[in-house]
């Protein structure tokens, strides 16, 4: 065991003193370090035939690597990229990915295996002790460095000339502000954009599947339909941004099953339209269980009761899904009677 060069702290073990000192004082100490055991030879160290076998094994591995690399190039040029092969137990897989991966893997692995086998069997395995030196500097060096520092600081006059010091600190503090200011154009200010969606009064509810406006008769009890506002097309430049707020989930309930009065008022003959965007962190929530009227979020399992104002009944969401007030226009199509009354999606500081 080591002897400890620093004076032990008040709470250092009693044993440590005893042990460290004893190892030196009492060689008959049964726990004392017996020192490095003598080196034992490997078969390869004493039997040249065994060493030759090892050499051949290493050379074989290196040669195999060469073959595999040739195989890699051959696979690259000859295997058609869309070819599918069946490999048990992997299934139907890409012939190219499999052949390239296996040959590359073998080529690399064999180099490694060869090198390690070489090191393990043929290079010297004599263990050598190497002394450690303390990381901290000696007292003389420490004293010298500290003295140098003091002298340097004194010569700079920084402590004496306060005006220089203060203005310099001021300049250094201010200069990074330029960098911060430059970040301003990373994006526009939020304004009220999170409060508005593409929905407004008179916008028809367009079926996501067919791109046709929905009629009340299309939506039957127990069905699930997704809708977007009229005029928003997939090819539109801002489709992603708008659909991220406007996506709608439409279900029809028996009016007598609707427990929440406002939900019933905002529905049309039991057809209710809720934001598809979870109020937790914005996943498109739509795991609708038609018998329980619960909608579950697949990301974090917030569960909303669509028959009760989309109230949260489980999980991490903090408030109900916003409902879109809907009605029917003169031509008999479902339309929005306005935008959502509250911001859709995740809550934010200014939401209120």
């Amino acid at each position, binding site marked *: 065991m080591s002897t400890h060069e620093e004076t032990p702290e008040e709470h250092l073990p009693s044993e440590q003193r005893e042990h460290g000192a004893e190892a030196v004082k009492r060689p008959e100490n049964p726990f004392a370090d017996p020192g490095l055991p003598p080196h034992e030879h490997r078969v390869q160290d004493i039997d040249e035939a065994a060493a030759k076998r090892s050499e051949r094994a290493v050379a074989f591995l290196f040669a195999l690597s060469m073959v595999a690399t040739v195989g890699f190039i051959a696979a690259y040029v000859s295997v058609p990229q869309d070819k599918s092969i069946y490999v048990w137990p992997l299934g139907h897989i890409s012939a190219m990915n499999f052949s390239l991966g296996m040959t590359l*893997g073998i080529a690399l692995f064999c180099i490694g295996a060869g090198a390690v086998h070489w090191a393990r069997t043929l290079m010297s395995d004599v263990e050598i002790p190497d002394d450690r030196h303390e990381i901290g500097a000696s007292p003389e060096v420490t004293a010298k460095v500290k003295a140098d520092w003091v002298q340097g600081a004194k010569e700079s006059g920084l402590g004496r000339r306060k005006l220089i010091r203060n203005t310099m600190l001021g300049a250094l503090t201010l200069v990074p502000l330029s960098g911060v200011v430059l970040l301003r154009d990373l994006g526009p200010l939020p304004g009220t954009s999170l409060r508005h969606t593409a929905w407004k009064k008179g916008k028809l509810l367009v079926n996501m599947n067919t791109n046709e406006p929905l009629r009340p008769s299309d939506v039957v009890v127990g069905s699930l339909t997704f809708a977007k506002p009229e005029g928003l097309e997939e090819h539109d430049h801002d489709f992603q941004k708008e659909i991220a707020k406007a996506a709608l989930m439409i279900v029809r309930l028996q009016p007598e099953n609707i427990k929440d009065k406002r939900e019933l008022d905002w529905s049309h003959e039991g057809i209710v339209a809720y934001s598809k965007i979870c109020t937790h962190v914005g996943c498109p929530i739509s795991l609708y269980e038609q018998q329980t009227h619960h909608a579950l979020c697949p990301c974090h399992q917030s569960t909303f009761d669509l028959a009760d104002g989309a109230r949260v009944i489980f999980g991490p969401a903090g408030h109900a899904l916003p409902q879109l007030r809907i009605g029917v226009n003169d031509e008999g199509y479902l339309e929005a009677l306005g935008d959502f009354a509250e911001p859709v999606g995740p809550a934010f500081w200014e939401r209120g």
Partner: protein
Amino acid sequence: MSIDTTEKPEPSGGKSRGKASGGERFADWTDGRLGIYSLARANMRKIFPDHWSFMLGEIVLYSFVIIILTGVYLTLFFHPSMNEVEYTGSYVPMQGQLMSEAFNSTMHISFDVRGGLLIRQIHHWAALVFLAGMFVHMMRVFFTGAFRKPREVNWLFGWLLFILGMFTGFTGYSLPDDLLSGTGVRFMEGAILAVPVVGTYLSFFLFGGEFPGGDFVARFYSVHILLLPGIMLGLLAAHLFLVFYHKHTQWAGPGRTNKNVVGMPFLPVYTAKAGGFFFLVFGVISVVAAIATINPIWAIGPYRPDQVSTGAQPDWYMGFSEGLIRVMPGWEVNFWGHTLVLGVLIPLLIFPLVLVSIGVYPFIEAWITGDKREHHILDRPRNAPTRTGLGVAWITLYMVLLVGGGNDLFATHLHLSINAITWFVRVGFFAAPVIAFLVTKRICLGLQRRDRDKVLHGRESGIIKRLPHGEFIEVHEPLAQEALHKLTAHEQYEPAAIAPPTDDNGVAKKLTRGEKLRAKLSRGYYAEGNQIPKPTVQEYEEITSGHGHH
């Protein structure tokens, strides 16, 4: 090998015997400009101890190199743009779909660049192995106490690498702009929005406006391929430099002391072993990429904010944060026209706390022990029962949260209720680490007792002997000195003094709160019952001589 430290041959001086080989002349030339011989003197025959657990860090290093190599290849084909294009590539079930250029180019890499899929898969598998390796490497360092002086700073470097690795992974996972990663980015947006006061602004600056905007892929790209890897490369260099500078720790054993390091030299043994290990790691990951799909974006589809799939999870290293967010109750406070989204904010704060708690541990332990010495001999985990217990408690917390992060898949595959699992995780978050701590500590103490018995009474030989008076006993073989040394080489601290020290006038000084806490913690670590006193020489001699009389 002995390095010639005498005067180097001058270019004009020439060598007296024979002509130097080309390589040697080149080395001389280089040394004259870069001083490589002085560097080689200390390092060429640097000694490294041999133990499999010391190679975990190498797995990490090599997978990092693999990630960089494959990552550079991927940048040759990847387009970090969110412009919408229509897919016309060779994967039939995606033809005609609108997608961002980022997704389109990832599809192109996967199906229309020969070997592109393989490189993508190597890149992603290596990233998983990189982080898993860091986790295991960090735990190895933790449980063996290798973080103690003088290695605390290097522990911090490693810990930072783990955290930066997590975010590099997350930004990389988001680049293909597929439905799965897009859902993850959406989550990130929601989490940023939950930040009080500035959340909305941060989100608008990050995404260049409203989510998803058209900027985040390009921005994540520069963060993923330049900013974070650049910092990591610097930290990695510092980490490795310190490993060389401090010299490696080693296990206690005959001839191995705190003042030396026993092992084999860097040249040739470790050059071959470590160099070979790089190829082995690369080979294994290549084979994994040849046989197992990772992140099949063609099956996942392009991101659209109104679409989602069940089983939406991040890669494993982000899984514990996913667990935190899934099991948190939905608390939300509204006041004065503002919303405090505690349901998201609390997990957002616990997330760094979980990481910081392990990161600062070395400093807490150093404070409790007050030990200022260098430690180069590793602790066996059993000999530090409280530390080991805390480490296992931390891992347990991490694992419980991972289960929470995958609660939907555990529900479907174990036929359980997702609600029940969520409740299990909610309770487990508080209870499981405590139970794990107590159980682990008991096990450690049991193992310490067994070691003590082994030292004092020898090894159970399995031979049953019948004594003359008819009693059967099992013969215990006394241990060899090497084994005795190994089992008694560890140090045992005593609890910090609790009596208030007196000043020069004999007046008792009042203990500060910090000192009281430290004394209390120290008792928790080292008081009787929290560690088994190791056998003393006296005890050993009494018992062995007693045996003689028997």
